[in-house]
Structures are given as structure tokens and as C-alpha cells.
């Protein structure tokens, strides 16, 4: 396989680490050496030549090739079987409506949340159970990290360079969750967003940090969802009033109460759309009176419509917790869902 990338020789694993750290090619953590063999294995898995064009970053006109994604994926710890997810996520991120440059350069400091659906979750061992939003398993950890390393190395999204985040959040190391499709009666997120049943897919969202909530003192769906809506209203008051793609992460304990009441994801979205709204004048309650102006009576909704809500079944089996994941900044960036177009069930071609 002919690579366009320059290669370097290093005589030890620590020399590899220092080479990558000193060039600013890491996220601060050690990397897996991207050898020719490892990168080749990723490309063979997706059956792409190194110079396969995955897309052009729309603002700065940067060409993103399979070779460069594979190098960064290997560095993140990806095995070849993880690579199709990285390719699809990046394809989704380069869609114009995602506004990748704005989302990754902004002072707002969001991260790219990757949501996995379909059979590939099981093939990869991606878990939507315990610790779902954090280090739940190898697959989600390395896929999320690969997204960030690609941003750092391909778009120069380094802190203080293109990445101008004031604070950022820990999801910028890795932010990937698999939906727990086996332990719910709900339709998977991807099906709600038009992906055929049984197909594997990736949804990307330019997202703030999870806002965890708790309500284990009721079984009534309306009361449980009121807590989620209140957390969204808090985000609208304290952070951004603009509507956009919010994600709700609903673990099993609260999910079972909702399901027992016969609530579908669509029912949840309708309820949340009704309840997650504030008057602009509420900004005065939280120290933002200066920007209320003469629009205090204007009502703002968290989403433009119920279908902007991304409801995800994920989380460990016990605990009356949930999370609201807010959008980076309203509708400036939209969530994008793409099916994984490569042949994930095929063996790589024989040499």
C-alpha cells in the first residue's frame, strides 16, 4: 500500500511517544504507534485505498483522506473493526449542516458526541449500560478519542490555535455512547431519524457536557420528564436560550417507568417540547437582565419542534438518574445521522 504520509523511525516505544507529544500530535495521553501495518489493516477493513477522499472540510477546504483518518484512529487505540465508525462519523461531521469549523473552533467549547445504533454496537462490544457516558467499554472509548485526534491533527484543532474554547469539557477526550437497544421497547434513535431497521449508524452532535439529573421519588412519566424539562430550562437560562438538538439520555430505571406508562420516544418529545420553554425575562433572574431588553414576554422553546429531540436509551440498570446533553449553540449546528456504508460484516480482502 502506497502512503502519502511522511514516515519517521523511532528506536523505542518511549521515543515514539516523545515524537508525537513534541510535535503536538496528541491529546496529552500516550498514543498507539501508527505503524504502516496497523494503518493498512484499518484501510483494508473498510476496503479503501489510502487516498480515498472522505470529504472536503467546507470552510477551510481541507481534503480529508482515509489514510489520515486511519493514522489517527490507530493512535487513538482503534482496531480495524472500529474504523468504519470513525469514517462514518467524520463523513457526518463534514456535512454542511453540522458546521464543523464553527463547532470545533468556538469559544463555546463543545465536543462531538457520537451515538451508535444498530448491530455494529454488539460486534464491537460497545456497551450502553453501566457508565454509558464515560469509560464504559473499549469501543466507545477509542472511537470517541479518534474523533478528537483527527480534529487535532487534520484541522489543527489545537487549544489556542483553531480550537478557541474558553473551557471545553472532558468529552473532548472521548464522547461516544452506544444506545442500549436490547433493553428497551423504544425504537432506536437512528430509526427515528430515518435509518432502516437493522442498519448500523452513527449520529454526531456538537454537544455540551452532560447535565446529570435525579428523580427516584416518582413513577409517573410526567413527573420524571418534568425533571428533564427543568434541566433543559436551566440550560436555557444559564447557557443558551436558542433552540436546537438536545439529547436526553434515559437509563433503565427511569426508562422502565416511562415504558410501563406506554410512553414512546415520540410521546416524550411532544411532552418535552411543551415543557422545555422559558420567557426571555427569566434571564433577569440569573444575572442576565442586560439582554432581556423589550422582549421579556417572548417565549423561547428548547427545540423548534419535537423531532429535534434525540432520546437515547442508555445507562446502568440501577439509579434514578438521567442526563440532558445540550447542543453547542442552538441551531447553528444540527445533529447528523448516517448509516455505516461500508461492509461491516465482510472480511478484509486477502493479500
Amino acid at each position, binding site marked *: 500500500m502506497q502512503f502519502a*504520509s*511522511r*514516515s*519517521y*523511525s523511532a*528506536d523505542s516505544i518511549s521515543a515514539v511517544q516523545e515524537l508525537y507529544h513534541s510535535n503536538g500530535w496528541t491529546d496529552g495521553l500516550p498514543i498507539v504507534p501508527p505503524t504502516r501495518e496497523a494503518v493498512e489493516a484499518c484501510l483494508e477493513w473498510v476496503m479503501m485505498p489510502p487516498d480515498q477522499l472522505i470529504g472536503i472540510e467546507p470552510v477551510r477546504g481541507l481534503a480529508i483522506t482515509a489514510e489520515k483518518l486511519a493514522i489517527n484512529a490507530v493512535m487513538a487505540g482503534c482496531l480495524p473493526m472500529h474504523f468504519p465508525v470513525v469514517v462514518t462519523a467524520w463523513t457526518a461531521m463534514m456535512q454542511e449542516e453540522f458546521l464543523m469549523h464553527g463547532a470545533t473552533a468556538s469559544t463555546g467549547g463543545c465536543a462531538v458526541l457520537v451515538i451508535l445504533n444498530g448491530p455494529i454496537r454488539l460486534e464491537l462490544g460497545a456497551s450502553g449500560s453501566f457508565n454509558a457516558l464515560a469509560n464504559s467499554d473499549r469501543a466507545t472509548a477509542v472511537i470517541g478519542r479518534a474523533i478528537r485526534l483527527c480534529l487535532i491533527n487534520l484541522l489543527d484543532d489545537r487549544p489556542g490555535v483553531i480550537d478557541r474554547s474558553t473551557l471545553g469539557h472532558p468529552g473532548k477526550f472521548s464522547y461516544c455512547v452506544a444506545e442500549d437497544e436490547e433493553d428497551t421497547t423504544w425504537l432506536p434513535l437512528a430509526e427515528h431519524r430515518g435509518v432502516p431497521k437493522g442498519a448500523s449508524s452513527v449520529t454526531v452532535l456538537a454537544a455540551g457536557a452532560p447535565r446529570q439529573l435525579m428523580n427516584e421519588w416518582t413513577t409517573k412519566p410526567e413527573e420524571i420528564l418534568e425533571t428533564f424539562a427543568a434541566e433543559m430550562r436551566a440550560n436555557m437560562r444559564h447557557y443558551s436560550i436558542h433552540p436546537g438538538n438536545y439529547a436526553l439520555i434515559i437509563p433503565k430505571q427511569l426508562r422502565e417507568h416511562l415504558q410501563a406508562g406506554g410512553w414512546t420516544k415520540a410521546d416524550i418529545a411532544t411532552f418535552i417540547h411543551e415543557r422545555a420553554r422559558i420567557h426571555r425575562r427569566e434571564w433577569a433572574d440569573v444575572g442576565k437582565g442586560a439582554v432581556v431588553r423589550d422582549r421579556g414576554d417572548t417565549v423561547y422553546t428548547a427545540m423548534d419542534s419535537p423531532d429535534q429531540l434525540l432520546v437515547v436509551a442508555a445507562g446502568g440498570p440501577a439509579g434514578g438518574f438521567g442526563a440532558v446533553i445540550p447542543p453547542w449553540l442552538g441551531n447553528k449546528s444540527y445533529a447528523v445521522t448516517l448509516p455505516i456504508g461500508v461492509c461491516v460484516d465482510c472480511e478484509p480482502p486477502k493479500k
Partner: protein
Amino acid sequence: MMFEVLDPTPGTAPPAGQLAPRLDTLEGKTIGFISNGKEGTKGFFRHLDQILREEYGVANVVSRTKSNYSAPADPHIVAEIKGWDAVVSGLGD
């Protein structure tokens, strides 16, 4: 143990824009402002407008604001640039 490892960066610089020729003077010129529309830009551009007109003899200041402060300037704003002698593109939080 020897490792042969690959460069994870593009290795080439992104396509760069080209700066317009510098002006010898601002006197009598038309200057365009492209604001990202954030709160902090208002006072800054108001003050800059005043300085350019009063101290540098600028003839016209054209102020435009992007519709999305996180995205490139709208095409209709970019199209207007040809009619200006210089541009100040500013952002403010």
C-alpha cells in the same frame, strides 16, 4: 525495537487566502466592517468608525453583520467586498 510510524497531520498547509495590497492612505476611502454580531462588537465598531472618519479622513464606513457568528460571512456580504477599499473583520464576545 524499531518503529516506523506515520505522520498524522496533512503535511501540507491548508489553502491560504491572499492579502489585498496595502493602502497608502485611508483618506477618502470606503472601509467595510464585517462583524460577527456579538455584543462586544457594537461598541468597538462604533468607536472604530469614529476614529477612521475623524482622524484618518475615511469617506465611508459600511457596516455588515454576519447572520451566523460561527460561520463564514454570508455570500451577499462577500460579494459587497469588491466595492470596498479595505475590510475590518472583527469578532467580539
